[in-house]
């Protein structure tokens, strides 16, 4: 079993895609700004939770399944979910702009986005 010279193209492909998606995320989120966790169910924004130090909240979200979201000192996580795979809980806390938690069974997504400073 030997590699062929064209294989290098196929090896570079995932690296290129990874690099491009990282660059796009950095470009979108460049500049200092405040962050918010945007909670969406089926694409509809249900909560926009500003994230800053000293803010601790527990928010139950009832989508197709019941999820409990915790906001804690600028980061956010899904701490419990009654769906059976619980991948969103295993993801743990996220805090950087562009990071997201996706709960496919509940059609739920939490994305950290940049928000304008107006009227916090």
């Amino acid at each position, binding site marked *: 079993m030997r590699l062929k010279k064209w294989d290098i193209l196929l090896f570079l492909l995932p690296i290129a895609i990874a690099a491009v998606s990282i660059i796009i995320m950095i470009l979108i989120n460049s500049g200092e700004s405040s962050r918010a966790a945007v909670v969406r169910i089926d694409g509809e924004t249900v909560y926009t939770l500003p994230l800053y130090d000293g803010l601790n909240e527990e928010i139950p979200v009832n989508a197709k399944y019941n999820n409990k979201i915790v906001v804690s000192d600028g980061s956010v996580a899904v701490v419990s979910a009654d769906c059976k795979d619980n991948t969103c809980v295993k993801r743990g806390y996220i805090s950087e702009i562009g990071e997201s938690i996706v709960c*496919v069974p509940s059609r739920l997504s939490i*994305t950290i986005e940049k928000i304008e400073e107006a009227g916090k």
Partner: protein
Amino acid sequence: MSKAKKTAFLAAFTAAAVIFSYVEFLLPAPIIPIAGFKLGLSNVAVLSVMYLFRSRDALAVMILRTAISCLLFSGILPLAMSVCGGMLSFAVSALLKRTGKFSIIGVSVAGATFHNIGQCAAAALIVQSAGVAAYLPWLMVLSLVCGAGVGVAAGFIVKNLRRAL
């Protein structure tokens, strides 16, 4: 090869693919916190069939193992994501293999890459959010590593089994 022998071989590969899926299902949560990330062990069987038989036989094995493992272990929603990833991955692998310019390892890496892209696209459609893209960089690195591993394993199987066929 007789039709019966081929049928028996394909059934054995399908069974092996389902077992691989089950082993992955039993593995503890991945070390890397990526939603539902899988090693893709069952692709060893699909890729081997693609090289030992014809691409259409590999397609049959892939569809059967996806349907069986989703019914037995994971459920309907992962089925939608698996099918999206599997079909895209299959199409890309079969085309690349046909060109004859790439080794089984390269084809496997490309298959893994497009499997993950397909699954991300399906997840993005289901939750109606582009946030899934945040998983892409990790998934791409893992595609390279796991795809290469799967390719090497399938390469050994193809090399050793070709004599037996």
